[in-house]
């Protein structure tokens, strides 16, 4: 017997990365801006998205959403009230969405033509660890954290916060009772992801939503 070293130098998630690159080309060709929303469970991704989708529809922006959860179609049913196409993805145990799943659902989603959309939101499974490694072909990764979670969340989950392109602080209407320290939260986000855009929002009162919509319009144009 003889031993030898074989160099691979290959990404463990190469297959996902290749599929994501294919999706990215597909999104670009269709002219749709895709956002991947990530957060812990309970941050308020769905409420934030519901508010966003409703506001976009009122402005005549064509948006749709894919929403990931382990089980149930509760989120898709909630989001359907925004009056835009929504499709639920159940991962049945998987803690993240991957590019293969997104591709499969887009293929099966007959009522949606990507080229007829301005924006596509992908609400990831609530998890601040695993989704950070899986590229979904998105242009913008948005990390959300709520005022109830503590200002040090970015320091606890640097892998995710560092991979994000924009950050949204949710439930700002609860900031006072939670004694939320804005400056500290913003400092912590910037410590992990210097220069990232941060939006402080409330899906309940609508605070900060206009600034967020302006950002979407600006990103769509660029």
């Amino acid at each position, binding site marked *: *017997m*003889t*031993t*030898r*070293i*074989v*160099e*691979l*130098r*290959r*990404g*463990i*998630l*190469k*297959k996902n990365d290749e599929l994501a690159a294919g999706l990215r080309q597909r999104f670009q060709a269709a002219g749709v801006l895709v956002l991947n929303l990530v957060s812990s469970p309970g941050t308020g991704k769905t409420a934030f998205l519901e508010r966003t989708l409703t506001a976009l529809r009122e402005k005549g922006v064509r948006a749709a959403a894919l929403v990931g959860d382990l089980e149930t179609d509760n989120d898709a049913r909630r989001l359907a009230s925004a009056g835009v196409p929504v499709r639920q993805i159940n991962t049945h145990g*998987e*803690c*993240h969405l991957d590019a293969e799943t997104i591709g499969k659902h887009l293929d099966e989603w007959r009522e949606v033509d990507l080229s007829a959309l301005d924006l596509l939101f992908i609400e990831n499974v609530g998890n601040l*660890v*695993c989704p*950070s*490694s899986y590229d979904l072909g998105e242009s913008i990764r948005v990390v959300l954290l709520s005022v109830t979670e503590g200002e040090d969340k970015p*320091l606890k989950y*640097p*892998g*995710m916060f*560092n*991979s994000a392109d924009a950050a949204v602080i949710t439930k700002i209407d609860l900031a006072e009772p939670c004694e939320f320290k804005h400056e500290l939260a913003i400092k912590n986000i*910037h*410590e*992990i*992801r*210097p*220069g*990232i855009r941060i939006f402080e929002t409330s899906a309940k009162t609508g605070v900060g939503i206009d600034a967020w919509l302006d950002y979407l319009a600006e990103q769509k144009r660029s």
Partner: protein
Amino acid sequence: MHELSIATSIVEAVTETAAAYPGAHVKEVRLRLGALASVVEDSLRFCWDLAIEDTPLAGAALTVVTLPVVVHCDACNADSELDGVQSFRCSRCGELASDLRQGRELEIESIEIEEPESAVEQPAQEK
């Protein structure tokens, strides 16, 4: 807890590579994991034996090299290795640095395989 998916992806990739060496046995798999890769080494090791069972990797050892985060500092115009992942500041001047140069690696560096003598001689004869 996506380490089992990660372990399964490693097994698929290594099986593909090892297929080019008939009769070979995989002794070791070497990984390069960045400090921001979001993979817990202990969890990966916990899944490893389960993932390699009944595959060409059965019995293979797992070696993990962890890579620190390296950022490029515009102020110093130089790369800077960080001590941890709690602050993305240049270790020289202390300025925030957003340009990540290393730290997200999730990579199979190499494998060590053991081949029967006959298999090793064959390529030599072809020459």
